[in-house]
């Protein structure tokens, strides 16, 4: 009979693991008894009573793992030693058993869910195209969350899908709501009769939330990815989405949201709109409206709600004019609290569409606007990390997100920037967007409250919130926390940007 032991210094395992490993060792052929325990005095006493104490164990300490084997033969003991590491390692990998079936391929997924009609693809861009093609070949609509899909691949996929009557939402499509199910970064909104097609993710989130918060609802919200409305892709899916909503019996009003499409694409979209019998509201952020269409996401969403309720969209303009007059009054009070030399706004955005919308609004109100993602009359920032005059930064751009999560998820970068901007004696206002919903940070107020409290000692902090009370974060709860921290909280990005612009205007007048 052989009794042999091994010591593992500083190796910690929970008791169940050690019990299991001990039991499995004991069950090996030729093994009479085995124990795997921490090297405490008491355990050594028990090992001694059981005949499992070997001389090497005498000097072992409480933090040492002792492995003892009593075997009929040297060979059986050797087999036990060969098995020990595997049994301990197995524990690490099996401690969190899978709680759901995770197929390794699209085909495997379809075996489990043969009635599926949409695939959400989020893999590295170079593989995403092939996966999307596979999904389309299987008759599935595709939401392509991945970015970095080559342009030619996007065109190929979209043409392929178009022929089969399928949608390809993306690449780089972060948001969609299909049959009431939020996909990617999306909010929990009311179901209703307004359909949305958007080539702007946060733009889609903003209009869908405004519509829902007004008591109306969404039939479908189709994202296309921002590149869809460029000349090369030609708006293939933007127009397919529009056609789908035109056919959809549950959609009464259609709302289109995008940064300005290429002129050729815009002409095609305009031509298609003329063939549709439902009211269509268009919001091409930054495009010249000449007073005929909405100029902000907020106005577009409210116009869609008015139309869905059989009212005239002009009523929305009156309502917003009254609201803007109130914002001007708030701005005068806010400007009065600023010190001499404080004269600039610093917009720190997690949503690219919001960053663009703020710049467009500022272009009409103040001069000297700079951005890392210029829109309207704004100029290119020399260094994205350093503000110049009135600066509006899209923190979701590549220079900030390479190797780290999106700023809607990870607030650390923006929080640092808020505190830096607040220290700048020329900063008067810090403007922020807070985006709620699935995919976004689950508790934004805990991230922001501290820094807002600190920043507002020196500057005004204005926040907009994109979200609903049905979102996991609960809009009103977030609003309450941010207000308690000292922020001025407004319901839309347009309202928040206008207030910031009015304050800077007023300071300029002084």
């Amino acid at each position, binding site marked *: 009979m052989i009794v042999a032991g091994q010591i593992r210094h500083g190796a910690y395992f929970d008791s169940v693991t050690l019990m299991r490993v001990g039991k499995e060792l004991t069950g090996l052929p030729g093994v009479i008894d085995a124990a795997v325990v921490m090297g405490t005095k008491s355990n050594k006493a028990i090992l001694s009573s059981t005949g499992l104490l070997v001389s090497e164990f005498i000097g072992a*300490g409480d933090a040492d793992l002792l492995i003892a084997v009593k075997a009929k033969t040297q060979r059986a003991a050797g087999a036990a030693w060969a098995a020990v590491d595997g049994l301990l390692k197995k524990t690490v990998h099996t401690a969190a058993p899978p709680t759901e079936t995770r197929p390794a391929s699209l085909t495997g997924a379809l075996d489990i869910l043969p009635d599926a009609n949409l695939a959400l693809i989020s893999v590295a861009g170079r593989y995403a195209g092939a996966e999307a093609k596979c999904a389309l070949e299987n008759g599935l609509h595709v939401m392509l969350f991945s970015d970095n899909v080559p342009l030619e691949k996007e065109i190929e996929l979209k043409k392929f899908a178009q022929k089969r009557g399928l949608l390809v939402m993306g690449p780089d499509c972060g948001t969609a709501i299909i049959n009431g199910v939020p996909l990617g970064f999306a909010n929990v909104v009311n179901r209703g009769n307004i359909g949305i097609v958007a080539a702007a993710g946060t733009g889609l989130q903003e209009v869908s939330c405004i519509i829902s918060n007004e008591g109306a609802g969404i039939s479908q919200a189709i994202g296309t990815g921002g590149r869809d409305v460029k000349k090369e892709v030609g708006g293939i899916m933007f127009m397919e989405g529009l056609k789908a909503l035109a056919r959809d019996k549950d959609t009464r009003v259609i709302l289109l949201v995008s940064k300005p499409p290429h002129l050729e694409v815009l002409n095609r979209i305009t031509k298609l709109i003329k063939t549709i019998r439902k009211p269509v509201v268009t919001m091409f952020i930054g495009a010249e409206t000449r007073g005929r269409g909405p100029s902000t996401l907020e106005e577009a969403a409210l116009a869609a709600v008015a139309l869905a309720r059989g009212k005239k969209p002009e009523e929305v303009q009156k309502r917003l004019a009254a609201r803007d007059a109130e914002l001007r009054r708030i701005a005068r009070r806010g400007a009065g609290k600023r010190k001499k030399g404080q004269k600039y706004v610093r917009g720190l955005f997690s949503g690219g569409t919001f960053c663009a919308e703020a710049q467009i609004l500022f272009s009409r109100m103040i001069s000297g606007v700079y951005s890392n993602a210029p829109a309207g009359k704004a100029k290119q920032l020399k260094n994205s990390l350093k503000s110049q005059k009135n600066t509006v930064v899209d923190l979701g751009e590549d220079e900030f997100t390479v190797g780290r999560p*999106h700023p809607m998820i990870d607030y650390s970068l923006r*929080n640092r920037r808020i505190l830096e901007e607040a220290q700048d004696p020329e900063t008067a206002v810090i403007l922020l967007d807070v985006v709620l919903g699935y995919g976004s940070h689950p508790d934004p107020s805990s991230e922001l409250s501290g820094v807002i409290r600190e920043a507002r000692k020196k500057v005004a902090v204005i926040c907009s919130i994109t979200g609903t009370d049905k979102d996991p974060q609960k809009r009103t709860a977030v609003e309450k926390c941010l207000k308690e921290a000292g922020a001025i909280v407004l319901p839309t990005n347009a309202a928040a940007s206008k207030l910031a612009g009015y304050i800077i205007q007023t300071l300029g007048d002084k």
Partner: protein
Amino acid sequence: MVFLPVMTPLSIGDQVEEGVYPFHSRFNRAVNFRQGDRLVSVVNEEIGDGPLNIVMRNLHAVRTQKPLEISDGKVIFEGREFSFTDRHRYCSTLESGTAVSPRFRCNLSLFGELLQTASHPKSLAFLLNDKRTQNFRSGFERTFVKQVKRSVGQIFSGDRLNGVRTLSGCGLGLTPSGDDFIAGLLIGLNLRGTGFRGFAEQVFAAARSDNIFSNTFLDLARRGLLFGRMKNLIFALVHGDADAVRGATGGLLAVGESSGADLGTGFVLTVSGGVGVL
């Protein structure tokens, strides 16, 4: 876009002090940091609130061994900064007014029954029901049962500190079953009132070892500082109905497979007087 679940701070224990804590060890549900005798753990929701726990939702698999930094409402973990406010602070003490009552006696009896029927087969609940010793079959396990019975018998029959010394470190795992039992004993002594404080100090001194996990756990128990699941149980025993006790017992038994039951056994024997059931 990278679609990662974000780590979110949920709570920070009231005994977590500012400082820089070097990496100590990691497990599936916890990452531990040590500074002197103090062990602070970043844990997931399954482990939950504790006096020295920082609870994170979506605790990722940690690959580096960066130190944990805690200062002025901020925690830097894995190089990422998390803000904590007062509303995140977990209070580990029992609210004043917690007292033993007739309802408590009744609930404690139910808790003892649940330990016998619902706990891990190899937990120390065999001290409440001898039939459960049948679950211990190998030579080592049978000797372990004898040793535990002898030690616990000493604790409740007068030779208390010798019993604690021989029980300490007895059993498998990170915090051996004997240490979990002693932690339950200390929590029970705290609940029984200030008259037992001196004894609790002696028990702690006798049970101290080189095991940082056990020492931290025992030190907190000695001072009446409770992790969330134990606090919930005591609250349910004092104020709750049978369903509340069942729910809180389920929560406790989910701790470390046998650890919760071992601790609960120590607690129930101490609070109920102990000797009669042995």
